[in-house]
């Protein structure tokens, strides 16, 4: 565990970058430092590998002061990923990744074999091994950066706004990849970003820092959204934190209606039997949703698919969150969301009212859990 113990960084001109910051970074989890520019998040990160030395306070790694070991030994035991990747432009992709193992004295051949293994792990084509950085896209370069940081298999990974210079689509891909890699490797990751959405998506724990380098709140993302510590955190989270919080509520318990689903080639009898519902969801022969229609506008046997109302984006119960379900319901003019299975076949529909009930239920459950946790914390504090 990394323990940041009342650390202050004051520059000779009097600027205070970090002000008496204390944090306990949990092992094998992603801890995100987030905040506006000038909040000292990068400075804090750089103090962990001693690229910046604190003015006061200290940092403990597994109980030992990080100043106890030679600085380069410390740095080689921590992977470091940086904005724009910071690759060595004069070395091939493979040699870039092999950098730290080579520094640690691993024979060239072995280091390169390890590098090739890592290229696969981060989703890079083996054909890129002999290329130079300028020949890669920004997203690919960033993957190389991650692979390079992982090459010596360090227990700790420091990431300084690694994905902020790439476009949103590539960024989402890189974030998903990081979560997947983290599932496999379980590193202790400290991740700096100014993007609160990124913090909430990636963080196991999120530390919100305010300008002047003081800690505003340190909490799991769901708690941050439900109980921001003060007006600054609330403001930083943005206007739609209620909606975003729904990402942490599962959709598995939504009660699905199967009644209002009809196949495109359904006969008049079937349609009539289901006409109690205000809208029917029409599916194709495989059961995939096509769109909504009022029952009396449906022609038996041959539905005109061009006349159907949009069904919005379907959600997968159990996999997607209540946020996705609500989004689907809001997008559809019928106010109903479509639930599908893994293959995209409609398994039910759910109205905004039902989703609303589920949200309220989830809220009260979360409040109960928070109370219990609070009691446990109080117990722990004794």
């Amino acid at each position, binding site marked *: 565990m990394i323990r940041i113990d009342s650390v202050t960084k004051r520059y000779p001109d009097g600027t205070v970058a970090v002000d008496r910051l204390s944090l306990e970074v949990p092992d094998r989890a992603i801890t995100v430092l987030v905040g506006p520019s000038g909040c000292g998040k990068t400075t804090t990160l750089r103090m962990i590998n001693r690229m910046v030395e604190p003015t006061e306070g200290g940092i403990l790694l597994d109980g030992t002061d990080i100043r106890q070991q030679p600085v380069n030994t410390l740095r080689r035991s921590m992977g470091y990923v940086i904005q724009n990747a910071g690759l060595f*432009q004069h070395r091939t992709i493979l040699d870039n990744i092999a950098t730290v193992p080579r520094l640690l004295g691993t024979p060239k051949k072995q280091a390169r074999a390890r590098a090739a293994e890592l290229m696969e792990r981060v989703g890079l084509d083996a054909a890129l091994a002999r290329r130079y950085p300028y020949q890669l896209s920004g997203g690919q370069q960033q993957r190389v950066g991650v692979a390079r940081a992982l090459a010596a298999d360090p227990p700790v990974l420091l990431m300084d706004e690694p994905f902020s210079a790439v476009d949103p689509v590539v960024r989402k891909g890189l974030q998903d990849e990081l979560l997947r890699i983290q599932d496999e490797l379980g590193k202790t990751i400290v991740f700096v970003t100014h993007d609160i959405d990124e913090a909430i998506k990636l963080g196991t724990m999120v530390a919100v820092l305010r300008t002047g380098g003081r800690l505003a709140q340190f909490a799991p993302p769901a708690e941050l959204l439900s109980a921001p510590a003060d007006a600054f955190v609330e403001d930083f989270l943005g206007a739609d934190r209620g909606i975003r919080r729904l990402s942490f509520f599962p959709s598995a318990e939504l009660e699905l209606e199967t009644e209002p689903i009809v196949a495109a080639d359904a006969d008049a009898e079937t349609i009539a039997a289901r006409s109690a519902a205000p809208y029917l969801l029409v599916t194709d022969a495989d059961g995939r949703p096509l769109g909504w229609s009022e029952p009396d506008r449906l022609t038996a046997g041959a539905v005109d698919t061009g006349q159907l109302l949009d069904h919005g984006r379907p959600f997968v119960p159990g996999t997607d969150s209540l946020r996705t379900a609500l989004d689907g319901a809001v997008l559809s003019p019928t106010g109903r969301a479509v639930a599908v299975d893994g293959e995209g076949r409609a398994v039910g529909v759910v109205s905004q009212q039902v989703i609303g009930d589920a949200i309220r239920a989830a809220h009260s459950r979360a409040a109960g859990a928070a109370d219990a946790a609070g009691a446990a914390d109080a117990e722990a504090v004794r």
Partner: protein
Amino acid sequence: MNGFFDLPSDLQYSYLGLVALHLREGLLPVLAGLVLALPVAQLCVRFRWVYPPVLGVTTVLYSIPSLAFFVVLIDYVGQSETTVMIPLAIYSLVVLVPAIVDGVRSVPPETLAAAQAMGFGPVRRYLQVQLPIAVPAIIAGLRVATVSSLSLVSVGMLIGNQGALGNMLYAATTYHRPALAVNSVLTTAVLGILADAALVLVRRLLTPWMPTKGAAR
């Protein structure tokens, strides 16, 4: 006897002998200049305040006529090749020091941060990261320094047959053979072009990692 490449015997060299001498007198000073410029440039990068005075000194040295250098140096090293080469080496600094400083400074800050974070010490970082990335800028400087040095060797004739191909200029007036002067000028130019081409080739071989013109990311 009057062939274009037949030289008067008091030049003491055959045509090819003079070419070899010219290359030695022109290239060795650049090499010496490079060896001297590397640490000086590193000092300028490390301590920013050193750079402006160093630039000032190299520029002033460059403005001193070679003849003035010769007069002083003859007392110490005589009318020798060394007397010619010392000023040439000093002149090369005015090009090489800024070239190396700019090259080393052109290394992106995130590359340096990454090197530091991966546990590169200062020496390793200089040799394995900064210097290799500065190679294109250093070679650009070497090209200017080399061509200029090769053309300046000729003034060595002023101190008595130490100007290699330049000695042919003197012989041309003594023996009323203008062809010798034409030969001297043309040969010097060809050597300059060949040396420049060789450096371009070296640059290509050393930097396979440079984006080629027109290639998109």
